[in-house]
């Protein structure tokens, strides 16, 4: 039994099967990126043990079951180690092969290690701003901030796992206990004021539609005008069909015919009204946010007043806002906005509920004479030193929008080591400092236009960052050795004896 397992793990066939499985996995994982986005593919295919279902070229394939990156990688690692233990023999002709495989072991192990220990965060600075913390995107924390003496702040931070668990949170530094009533990955906070404004706009627009189709005399000229916009024309055609017209290609002619019959003309007007109203409401709904809220309410026939809109919480910003839950987004370009509803209790009685969201700023909570600010924000890690952005450079090539150069001149101020020095971070040239690496992020044109003078640094903590370098050198040396060994052999053989 043991023997056959050993044989299985040392066999070359297993290597080949695993390599084949890896090729298919990488291929599928690449094509699927078009549908699922890079992050989700990483989670579902490469840093996972198995893959269940996929979508290739827009075709859903729920039957696709395949070993994931973790499984293939670990098996390859075991296979490699076992095969070497079994077959290892010391000779110059095998040295290259051993080195190559050793290097691959280092690479695989390094990748696995960095999967496990690597942490990515970022630091966003405006020119002249000093930063003493880094933030992790896609990982919100619940923060309670109170002022201490002088410049200092006291922060109680609740990590995302704890928020997600719900229940009650207490801390000796907090004058209240926190009960998480609701927590979700994405939701839009819509202020009531904006929703009311949107409602006014929609009501006006709908009234215009109603007015437009109130007099039968207007029908023919309206149809003529509609001929100019294909989108409107289609609505007219649909309306004509709905009142039983067969020939709808020439809209103006048909409308002229219908307008001659008063009864059908009014029918047509009703049809047009309904259809254009529907179109308007759908247009508002599609825009999301306050537009969607207003459109949904109006479509349901409800009136919109500050009182009729549901409040997300009883206190704070949520008292004047409605929450629209959204599905979490997975692709790279759009963000999710997590939110939570908290109930705060002090002295055995409830202070009310608060809505916190990454869309909202810090909100003050008054308990006795103490003020605590509460916020849901990207998880922060404070650094024992500060980094000040002195100057951000974003250059494009003259006469084009192609980015040429992104760099940041920063000042590191470390009170412990008494360091106070300037340095430069640019693309392809990161700053490695205190176990962290700071990389210049290349902003898109839109981002750079929106925030001039801003610089985003990606911050990575990866203690295993050197492993790929070592692995690569080992493999290259091994392959080169083997290659030269063969070449020498080949040339010797060709030399006439």
């Amino acid at each position, binding site marked *: 039994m043991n023997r056959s397992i050993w044989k299985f793990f040392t066999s*070359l*066939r297993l*290597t*080949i099967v695993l*390599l*084949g499985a*890896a*090729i298919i996995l*990488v*291929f599928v*994982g*690449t*094509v699927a*990126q*078009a549908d699922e986005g*890079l992050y989700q*593919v990483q989670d579902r295919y*490469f840093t996972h043990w198995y893959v269940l279902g996929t979508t290739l070229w827009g075709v859903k394939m729920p039957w696709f079951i395949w070993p994931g990156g973790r499984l293939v990688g670990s098996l390859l690692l075991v296979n490699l180690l076992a095969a070497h233990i079994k077959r290892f023999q010391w000779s110059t002709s095998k040295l290259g092969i051993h080195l190559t495989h050793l290097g691959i072991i280092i*690479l695989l192990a390094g*990748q696995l290690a*960095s999967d496990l220990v*690597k942490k*990515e965060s970022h630091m966003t600075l405006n020119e002249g701003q000093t930063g003493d913390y880094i933030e992790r995107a896609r990982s919100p924390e619940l923060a309670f901030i109170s002022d201490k003496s002088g410049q200092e702040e006291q922060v109680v931070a609740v990590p995302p796992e704890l928020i997600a668990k719900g229940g009650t949170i207490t801390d000796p530094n907090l004058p209240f206990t926190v009960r998480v009533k609701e927590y979700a990955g994405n939701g839009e906070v819509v202020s009531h004021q904006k929703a009311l404004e949107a409602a006014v706009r929609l009501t006006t627009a709908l009234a215009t539609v109603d007015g437009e189709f109130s007099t039968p005399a207007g029908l023919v000229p309206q149809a003529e005008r509609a001929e100019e916009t294909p989108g409107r024309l289609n609505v007219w055609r649909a309306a004509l069909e709905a009142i039983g017209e067969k020939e709808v290609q020439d809209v103006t002619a048909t409308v002229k015919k219908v307008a001659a019959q008063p009864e059908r003309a009014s029918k047509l007007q009703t049809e047009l009204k309904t259809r254009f109203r529907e179109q308007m409401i759908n247009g508002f709904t599609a825009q999301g946010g306050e537009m969607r809220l207003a459109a949904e309410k109006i479509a349901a026939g409800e009136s919109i007043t500050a009182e009729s809109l549901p409040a997300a919480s009883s206190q704070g910003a949520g008292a004047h806002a409605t929450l629209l839950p959204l599905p979490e987004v997975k692709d790279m370009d759009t963000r999710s906005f997590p939110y939570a509803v908290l109930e705060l209790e002090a002295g055995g009685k409830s202070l009310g509920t608060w809505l916190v969201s990454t869309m909202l700023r810090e909100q003050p909570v008054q308990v006795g004479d103490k003020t605590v600010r509460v916020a849901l924000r990207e998880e922060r890690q404070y650094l024992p030193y500060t980094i000040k952005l002195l100057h951000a450079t974003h*250059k*494009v*090539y*003259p*006469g*084009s*929008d*192609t*980015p*040429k150069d*992104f760099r940041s001149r920063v000042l590191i101020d470390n009170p412990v080591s008494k360091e106070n020095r300037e340095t430069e971070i640019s*693309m*392809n*040239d*990161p700053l490695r400092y205190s176990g962290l*690496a700071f*990389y210049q992020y*290349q902003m898109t044109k839109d981002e750079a236009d929106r925030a001039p003078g801003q610089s985003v640094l*990606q*911050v*990575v903590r*990866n203690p295993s*960052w050197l492993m*790929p*370098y070592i*692995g*690569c050198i080992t*493999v*290259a040396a091994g*392959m*080169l050795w*083997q*290659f030269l060994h*063969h070449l020498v052999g*080949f040339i010797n053989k*060709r030399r*006439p004896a």
Partner: protein
Amino acid sequence: MKTWLSLLLTFVCAGSLFAQEAKEEKFAVEEFGKLPILNGGRRQPIDSLARNTLLQLRGKQTANYEPWKDWYAKPKIVSATEWFMEVLMNPAVGDTRPVFRIDHPDLKALLALPMEKGFETDGKHFSWNQLQPKADTLLKETMRVFNEVPSDKRNQFDKAVINLWRATFIYQQLKTSLQPPDARDWQAELQAFMDNREAGREAAKAKQAGTPFNEAALNLIMDDASRFLSMERYDEFEFARKMELRVPLFIPPATGNIDNDWQRTGQALMEAVQGGTPNPALAHYAVIGSAFRANDAPGFNNAVAAYRASLAGRLDANLGEASKEVLFNKLQLFYTAMMISICAFLCAIVYWFRPVDWEILRKIAACTLLAAVLVTATGVIFRMILIGRPPVINLYSSATFIALGAPVLGLILEAFWRNSIGIVVGSVISALCLIVAHYLSLEKDTLEMLRAVLDTNFWLATHVVIVTLGYASTFVAGFLGIIFVVRGFFTQAITPELKRSLARMVYGIICFATLFSFVGTVLGGIWADQSWGRFWGWDPKENGAIIIVLWNALVLHARWGGIVRERGLLNLAIVGNIVTSWSWFGTNMLGIGLHSYGFMDAAFYALLAFDVTMVALIIIGALPLHLWRSPLEGRASKSSKSAPTGAEPQPA
């Protein structure tokens, strides 16, 4: 077939272009083409802009003014610069030239264009004057496609619409890039503006201050300003900026030689309106333009020389680079290399019919391929000099680099085995890659500037070059496999000895390919670690590279484990072609977005056809041996070795 035909046509066109240019002594077209400008952030000669524009408009580097005539009827074909001069300086005539190529029938119908060959039309090429009446329709359709149809859902018609709109917009931009498009005598008009400038500015100031002012002077300068502003509008059109269409910078800095100080003509004129010292180049170009319009060749030539003289010294670097690039454009090295490769291929194939008697043919083929390699190498090095960068910076240059690497490998194989297999493989890959390069050059300026993240010569020189060598060698192995299957199945040429030596070649090359693709891939990872902080990010291009490594490793292990033998190895090598073509091209097609136009779609089908062919070959390669014409079964008798079949390496 169509490719070959069109390439042949290009050749004919290029040939007749040279003949034409010799006769054309009136205007110093070439001198004008050598004037330096800045476009897409890159210093270049007007000639390059003219050629690249024509490539985008009609897929050729020359303009055919009478496309309805057959080639033997000698249609009037002019050089890119000559056509460009009309666009820049006499757009009223330029508007009559049929330079927009439209193939999609629905698009022609939309714009009410003639569908078939007829009087003074070939039903494919149209002038701006023919398109202009329906320009609004085109814009409306473009807006629809752009706003309503996501880029991956666009059909052929949608893409044709966007392509044509893009071409017409580029054309409009160029018409405004040297003088106002409605100028009649630009020199006089510019002079009038200059003369009135001070008075006009005074009048404007006076009007603002509420004091009496010279109304005539104010009206004049206001008219000029609105004219110049309308030129600038072509640079700011938001929709076009999304497609990265910007007006080229024709006006060099008035002092110094910093690239960032180059200006658009409209920009320089607006500065003059606002009180800045007018840039002297404006006047030079105005003289050139008016002389051209007045058909005054000596005046034009003198003005061009005077402008060049005014740039000499301060902008020597720009002038020198521009002249070099014009020479490079004119030489068409990659095109020549492709032709030579095809000749080498034909010689090598013919040699196979009578291998023993026609040894001389093999030698000719080898020398021809060597010549092709030298020409390609010259082209690659010339490009490196022009851009001051390592050989591979984009997809285009990776194609030319594979076209250099593969035949070198082929020649090395040939030196050992002397059976013309190396020549065939090398020349086929070289010719195919150069054809691919030709089509890629239709997309955009191939000497483009690099985005910030790619702007590092060290990694370009190591990672990119090594990965590309990996592609080249995997292709060589794959094409060796193809030769085995085709010759083995359809002819009697493959003996067991030859099979063995083919397998040895493939084995060696796959080892080589593994080394290169592995080292290249890992270097790419290190580069990513240096610039983004992650060694591996699973992005499509990285995945493509790792798949080649994994595939090569799989083949080698299958061979070592005895799971495949010689025929299996050769068949697996053909699979390598699919893998490599997908990594090289397929990964660029995943997120077909804003920046992919025409070619990538056509390339998608070409890639599919290539892969299907490979699959067919693999199936043939796996058919039972008794169906093969070559006697591969059993051991061939020793006596067959007496004839030099090229199966074993010949002593050098």
